[in-house]
């Protein structure tokens, strides 16, 4: 933070902002000062009111009470348009792209280049191209419909659109939830530039280390109330957690650590995937044993989601085979078959294919297990449903006004908890998680980690896709790395380092392979070594979790 910013008058000042929905107060007299040229982080548990606050400041929803000033002048935007006119931009927590429009049209939506209303297509695509290149999406075609991009890329498109508009205040609501460290790193670069140009950046994230890295000051909200605003300097992540939860921090190690160590638990294979191909995913083989958790990482667009979808039968795999609990299942043709075989999948985009936003929480919680658990002669067992919902709300600490609240009215993180929870209610032998903790706060995340632990403890197998390496380090027994749809390395607990994984994330294609197998440089040879070890281990069925990429020989031939 630049020195003069410290004593500069606030650029954006909120006074006693309050938001009520019917009788419930979700934001209660919150006052915050945001200075020009600072990155100001908003912290708070799921449902604390962060997004609501941002929505008010960006004119997306009116405040029930309270006021705000922008650059000294009174500021009460009645619409997004007014906010933008005043120089306030926001990237919302939930994707807000228009699927049927092209990437370019989405990037420049509110200001499509035109002459007398007629689109200037050439300029549109040129400008879009520029923005995409500038913000790390060189691979994306501005003409493609945005719905054909993976969620991560969609998120990046949305961020790029905001960064491309010049503004005085930029609000980002959990922008990195679906981004891997690499993309996040790029984003931070851009945010720092903006800060140095005097823009006020309001930043929401549940990844505390990145907050610590980026933010100048943090404001903590709890249950819709303002707790404290402080300089980040001299504030440890544990302090933040304590402030958010309101409990005095217990001296113990805050970061979750799996209590299970490799070696314990049963040994027979729960899920085996052989040479699976589908769209961007090419020839992936891996296996997970009962009681183990295999992490899957890679850059945005690496094909992680596609891989899980192919395994689960959401997309028809074009080649390869899946084996569950030792029973060969070929390729699943429909998720129902996969579920019947004991699989479960928490999808990446809760909004589009995870939840019924227009239905109550209870309906979502029991969605995948009605016939199995909540049905008697075809009738709904309402009591059982209420019990299960209440139980889940307690277990995952879902902040809602009760089981009848529409899922769409929950905060992002709480929605995510429900999306995960519906499968916990159903239960399965092998659980596939795609970004399971996307948008979930630290405390709740720990609950989920413990749940994963418990699952592993009673012999379930988990495949966890996450962009948050730290998360995989904490929870997994092994981590597989995808790059361009290929497995480029698998590392066991203790074996992995950020470098190795980063290396593997970029290591791809024939040349990548060559460098890998030819052991041209240290990191690569590391990866190669572990890779070889892994494949060997797989062959001998000794390793706790192993993956092999049979692609290598094929590629060498090329």
């Amino acid at each position: 933070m630049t020195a003069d910013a410290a004593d500069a008058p606030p650029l954006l000042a909120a006074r006693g902002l309050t938001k009520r929905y019917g009788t419930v107060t979700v934001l209660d007299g919150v006052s915050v000062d945001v200075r020009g040229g600072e990155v100001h982080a908003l912290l708070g548990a799921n449902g604390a009111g962060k997004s609501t606050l941002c929505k008010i400041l960006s004119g997306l929803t009116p405040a029930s009470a309270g006021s705000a000033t922008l650059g000294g002048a009174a500021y009460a935007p009645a619409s997004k348009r007014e906010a933008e006119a005043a120089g306030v931009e926001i990237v919302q927590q939930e994707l807000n792209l228009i699927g049927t429009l092209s990437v370019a049209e989405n990037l420049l939506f509110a200001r499509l280049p035109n002459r007398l209303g007629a689109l200037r297509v050439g300029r549109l695509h040129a400008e879009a191209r520029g923005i995409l290149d500038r913000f790390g999406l060189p691979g994306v075609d501005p003409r493609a419909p945005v719905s054909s991009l993976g969620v991560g890329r969609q998120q990046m498109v949305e961020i790029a659109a905001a960064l491309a508009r010049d503004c005085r205040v930029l609000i980002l609501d959990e922008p990195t939830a679906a981004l891997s460290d690499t993309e996040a790193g790029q984003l931070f670069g851009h945010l720092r530039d903006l800060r140095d140009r005097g823009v006020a950046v309001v930043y929401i994230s549940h990844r505390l280390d990145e907050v610590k890295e980026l933010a100048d000051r943090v404001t903590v909200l709890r249950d819709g109330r303002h707790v404290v605003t402080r300089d980040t300097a001299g504030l440890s992540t544990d302090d933040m957690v304590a402030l958010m939860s309101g409990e005095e921090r217990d001296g113990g190690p805050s970061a979750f650590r799996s209590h299970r160590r490799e070696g314990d638990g049963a040994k027979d294979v729960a899920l085996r995937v052989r040479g699976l191909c589908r769209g961007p995913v090419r020839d992936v083989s891996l296996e997970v044993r009962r009681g183990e958790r295999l992490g899957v990482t890679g850059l945005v667009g690496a094909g992680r989601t596609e891989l899980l979808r192919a395994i689960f039968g959401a997309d028809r795999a074009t080649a390869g085979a899946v084996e569950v609990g030792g029973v060969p299942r070929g390729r699943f043709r429909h998720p129902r078959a996969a579920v019947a075989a004991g699989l479960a999948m928490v999808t990446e985009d809760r909004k589009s294919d995870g939840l019924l936003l227009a239905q109550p929480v209870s309906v979502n919680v029991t969605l995948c297990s009605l016939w199995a658990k909540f049905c008697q002669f075809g009738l709904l067992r309402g009591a059982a449903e209420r019990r299960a919902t209440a139980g889940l709300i307690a277990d995952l600490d879902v902040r809602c006004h009760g089981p009848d609240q529409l899922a769409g009215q929950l905060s992002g993180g709480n929605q995510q908890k429900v999306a995960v929870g519906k499968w916990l209610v159903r239960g399965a032998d092998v659980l596939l998680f795609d970004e399971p903790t996307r948008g979930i706060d630290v405390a709740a995340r720990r609950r989920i980690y413990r749940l994963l632990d418990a699952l592993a403890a009673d012999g379930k197998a988990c495949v966890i896709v996450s962009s948050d390496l730290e998360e995989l380090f904490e929870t997994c027994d092994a981590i597989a790395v995808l790059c361009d749809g290929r497995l480029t390395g698998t590392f066991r607990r203790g074996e992995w380092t950020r470098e190795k994984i980063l290396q593997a994330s970029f290591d791809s294609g024939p040349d990548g392979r060559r460098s890998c197998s030819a052991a041209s440089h240290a990191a690569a040879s590391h990866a190669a070594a572990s890779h070889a070890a892994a494949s060997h281990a797989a062959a001998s069925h000794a390793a706790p979790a192993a993956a092999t990429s049979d692609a290598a020989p094929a590629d060498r031939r090329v």
Partner: protein
Amino acid sequence: MTAPHLSRSLIQYGGLSAALLAMVAAFSLGSENFFQTSTLISIANQIPELTFLAVGMTFVLIVRGIDLSVGSLLALSAATLGVLMARHGWPLPAALAAAAAVGALCGVANGALSVGFGIPSFIVTLGMLEVARGVTKKLTDSQSVYLGGPVEAFGEPLGALRVSPAFLTAALTVAIGQFVLTRTVFGRYCTAVGTNEEAVRMSGVRPAPYFVAAFALSGVMCSLAGFAQTSRLSTVDPNGAVGIELSAIAACVIGGTSLMGGRGSVVGSFLGVLVIQVMQTGLAQMGVSDADKQIVTGLVIVAAVLFDALRVRLGPRS
């Protein structure tokens, strides 16, 4: 955003019922003969046809489909009934079963074609509308089949209440329909499929069966409606019920069912039917010109829904 379903639909019924009462009041003032049991009875005896159709349509709309073929299916199953009884001397129950089977079959065809080939149900049922009508005409040589006695019982008002078995059946159907929609796994999944088919699929549940079932249900309802009409007219009219699909859909939408799927209630649709039927009878009794009748009709439809809208802002327009 929409308020929680239960409370919303409650308020909704409140709104519609109020609108309905307002209409009754208006008509009672408009013509001194309106507010008489005789009138109410005659309304009650006309209702069954549209009610059956609306119940089926509600399920179809809820799974995010639409069924334009109800009018033709009504005629087709009625024709089946008529031909089997008049020409082949089948007993009523057997003929009735056959008619129901025909309805169900066509319904399944509607649903299966749509979901199987990903053709919009609008198109499939539009096709069925034409085909079924054509078959009906072939069956009957475009002649109305007079049945008389045997079929009339179902439509004849009886008992102290002077209501027909048809009406009681219809009322029962509404009750059961509402129960199925809100209290059974089937109903729940129908709603889910209409809300977000992909999410249902990703939850390991096949949407297709529910989609097809909804159309099959609609088909059976058409047969019932066909029987109700036949017994009311003591005749099978191969040209009957043309364009009734619009009334059926209107009843549902007036009753708060969304054309965009996932939201609706059978009771609401029934109230919708009442609104339509009361207005029709009321206007027929009042001394106004044809043109004025249509104008009033239009205004009332909008007013009835506006009445709700002002209470609870419904979710997405549809």
